């Protein structure tokens, strides 16, 4: 059993970060120039880290699979970014943001990391404003805030419905400045297919140039993974088409532990699936639940008629509607947290009350709000979202209720990291969504952007210097070392096998199949029998993929099918690990609802006695079962309580 020690300073929680910074080792400017750092991914975490490390004087190499860093999927975040600024004088402070994050994560996150995140949050806003991020403002010229995701304070900063875009462009421009100054070298259109270890330390990566197909070797004194989440394991998700687990998965296969893989967030307000050839799901901002009321018909016959389009939702009188969130959770109503709202929608649809042609949708109705506030007021608040909905669904939400259904949105699990954001492999770091550290079993709205930027701008630049101060005598790492040769050989062999496989089915066929297994057995609701069955199904799929996948095109050219094949093969392996993790966690917590662990009235029941730990998995070789290690969670500041929204 590996001893998983986060290594936070042994001082009171509120003093830990200051104490760490006061004691951490620094690298002098002459030596920084001689140290190379690889950053994989250019979303909020990766771009902010690469920009800051470049600004500090390190030699940074930044990689992204997109054509430019500005396209990373952080760009799609709509709602906002939390910060404990207390500009509204409504009682917010660092402790309250910390407390809300720990509680919202259903007591499965580590106190030390979360407290640091909350304490850094105000600095993020200062920096982003200085960069020119056009956050919403009041007429007095100061910054505006809104309440988000049911919190009691207004601490969310936002830029219309495009907060992620504006923050990413801020980080991208900081990165561009460092590229221009020669501190960062950008490698775009590259997939990172392996992490190279020399004497047990992370020393480089193997990249595939997506344009030429060239296999490249890149070395460094430290490697930072910032490759985002793995929601695409479900095939349909709100992630970008190219979002993938591959860099994080390579790190796992090289010895980094993978923590809480089963913790995925299913967002309640997405546009429902319309057909078999659907390629992705689109999120409608959670803010819609502030004014929309969620309902399904009270009678199954009405639901059936709606599915067959024999009647319209406006035809159903008030008395025949079931506002099930308001009924079940009178205290919070339509503003219950994401996990609760998602499960309730699934429950109604599974019971036969779902609407839309597939029966997998519920209504989000603005009729009351429009009658109360007028169409103009609603348009001012949600105009762009209504427009987007109409563009996709061809239905006017001012006249007829929107249809929504839950969809995979964010993954809380990821590479295990300590207080310094280092994985269990020395010199290998993981930041942003690809690590597991801050959101426990359920992420609060507007906290993902906060974490990505905190890690990249303010945490990693300090913590990595401690490690690199021990590397100043290490000359540049040669890419001719046998470890690089071996990694290149392995990558080339696997690519050739994929390319030369004389199968009959396309990559998408397997990806779609995997998605169905994951959604069915490891989605919003899980049970032992289903999870055991899924392990067998995934194993069959893995074999079928190896025997029967067809990858057209060549190795040394632009070949999107080859890229997908590699990613999907990794997703299949990840799927197996997620299911194993869900199986061992015989409790319901956050995004993980285990049917065997529920209260008499069917609410999630956590089990702190047995499961107050981080489950971190170790790769034991292909064909062997991975080994589970535990980091026990100690709640010294916040006493865990059962969440209740009744």
């Amino acid at each position, binding site marked *: 059993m590996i001893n998983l020690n986060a290594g936070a300073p042994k001082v009171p929680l509120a003093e830990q970060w200051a104490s760490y910074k006061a004691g951490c080792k620094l690298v002098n400017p002459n030596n920084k120039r001689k140290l190379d750092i690889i950053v994989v991914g250019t979303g909020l975490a990766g771009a902010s880290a690469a920009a800051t490390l470049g600004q500090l004087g390190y030699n940074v190499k930044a990689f992204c699979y997109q054509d430019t860093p500005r396209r990373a999927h952080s760009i*799609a975040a709509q709602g906002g970014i939390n910060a404990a600024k207390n500009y509204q004088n409504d009682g917010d402070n660092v402790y309250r943001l910390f407390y809300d994050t720990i509680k919202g994560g259903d007591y499965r996150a580590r106190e030390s990391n979360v407290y640091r995140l909350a304490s850094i949050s105000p600095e993020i806003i200062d920096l982003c404003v200085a*960069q*020119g991020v056009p956050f919403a403002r009041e007429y007095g010229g100061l910054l505006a805030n809104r309440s988000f995701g049911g919190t009691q304070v207004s601490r969310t900063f936002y830029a219309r419905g495009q907060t992620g875009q504006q923050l990413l462009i801020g980080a991208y421009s900081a990165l561009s400045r460092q590229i221009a100054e020669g501190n960062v070298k950008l490698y775009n259109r590259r997939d990172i297919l392996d992490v190279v270890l020399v004497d047990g330390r992370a020393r480089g990566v193997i990249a595939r140039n997506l344009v030429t197909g060239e296999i490249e070797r890149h070395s460094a004194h430290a490697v930072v993974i910032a490759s985002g989440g793995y929601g695409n394991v479900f095939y349909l998700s709100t992630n970008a088409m190219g979002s993938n687990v591959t860099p994080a998965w390579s790190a796992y296969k090289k010895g980094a532990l993978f923590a809480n893989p089963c913790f995925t967030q299913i967002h309640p307000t997405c546009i429902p699936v319309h057909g078999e050839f659907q390629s992705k799901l*689109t999120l409608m901002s959670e803010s819609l639940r502030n004014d929309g009321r969620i309902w399904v018909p009270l009678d199954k016959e009405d639901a059936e008629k709606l599915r067959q389009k024999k009647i319209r939702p406006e035809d159903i009188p008030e008395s025949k509607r079931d506002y099930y969130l308001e009924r079940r959770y009178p205290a919070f109503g339509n503003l219950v947290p994401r996990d609760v709202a998602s499960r309730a929608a699934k429950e109604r649809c599974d019971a036969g009350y779902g609407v839309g042609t597939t029966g997998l949708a519920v209504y989000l109705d603005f009729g009351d709000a429009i009658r109360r506030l007028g169409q103009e007021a609603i348009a001012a608040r949600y105009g762009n979202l209504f427009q987007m909905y109409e563009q996709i669904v061809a239905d006017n939400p001012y006249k007829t209720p929107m249809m929504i259904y839950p969809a995979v949105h964010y993954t809380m699990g990821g590479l295990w990291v300590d207080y310094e954001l280092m994985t269990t492999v020395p010199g290998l770091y993981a930041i942003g969504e690809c690590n597991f550290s801050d959101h426990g079993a359920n992420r609060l709205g507007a906290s993902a952007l906060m974490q990505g930027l905190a890690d990249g701008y303010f945490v990693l630049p300090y913590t990595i210097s401690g490690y690199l101060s021990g590397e100043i005598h290490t000359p540049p790492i040669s890419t001719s070392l046998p470890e690089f040769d071996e990694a290149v050989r392995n990558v080339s062999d696997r690519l050739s096998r994929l390319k030369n496989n004389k199968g009959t089915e396309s990559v998408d066929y397997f990806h779609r199949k995997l998605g169905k297994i994951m959604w069915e057995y490891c989605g919003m609701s899980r049970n032992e029998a289903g999870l055991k069955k899924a392990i067998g199904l995934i194993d069959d799929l893995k074999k079928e993929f190896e025997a029967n996948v067809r990858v057209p095109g060549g190795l040394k050219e632009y070949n999107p099918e080859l890229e997908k094949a590699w990613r999907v093969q990794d997703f299949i392996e990840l799927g197996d690990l997620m299911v194993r993790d869900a199986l061992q966690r015989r409790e319901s917590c956050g995004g993980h609802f285990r049917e065997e662990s529920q209260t008499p009235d069917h609410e999630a029941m956590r089990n702190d006695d047995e499961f107050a730990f981080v489950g971190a998995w170790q790769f034991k070789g292909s064909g062997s079962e991975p080994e589970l290690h535990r980091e026990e969670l100690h709640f010294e500041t916040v006493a865990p309580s059962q969440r209740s929204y009744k």
Partner: protein
Amino acid sequence: MIFTLKIWRQKNAADKGGLVTYKVEDISADSSFFEMLDILNQQLIAQGVDPVAFDHDCREGICGTCSLYINGRPHGPLKGVTTCQLHMRSFRNGETIFVEPWRCGAFPVIKDLIVDRSAFDKIIQSGGYVSVNSGGIPDANTIPVPKPDSDAAFDAAACIGCGACVASCPNASAMLFVSSKVSHLALLPQGRVEAERRVQKMVSTMDSLGFGNCSNTYACEAECPKEISVVNIARMNREYLAAKIFAEKEKQISFSL
């Protein structure tokens, strides 16, 4: 629905390329344009033909990866919509649809429908930022910004860097793209400090990369999926002129000293 597709196929940058005709059937009106291309590609893979390469990523209209001339128009027939947000219900059943990569010397074709837009990155690298470091920043509310200025800056900053402005312009001018960044930062007090330097550097980089000049056709504004206004171009011209005059004056003063 049934469609005939005339799609530009080009193996790589050196290849001459040409239009190839394909047929797709049984397409749902609710499927997106890219889902229709996905279906075509599944057919091609089954037939052992190399699938059509096209740029796409978020498929929700915000990342700016997607491109394409669809029947000669950047991002297709709808106003304010990217190709990835376009649905087949916007086309007639049985229609023939022409699909081509963007044509501009500064955006060379990589393969099929994919072009290289890294020239945009180079323009941003030449000055599309506020030169602040992370650390030692004063509280965000120490700089009040009038709401109308902030809103106007946001309107300019909504650019997704897709290149439709260049693709729509008869001169392949990048003025709308560059001016949106110049405006975004020049409208804010934080960006004002180095506004003169910024506009000169960005414009000179834009010119050196082979983009044409603006001749006021306003095609860029009409085709921009984020509906960025040409007012930004006027603002950039003013900024540029002022910066140049200011630079001349400074030179004279320093000579006379």
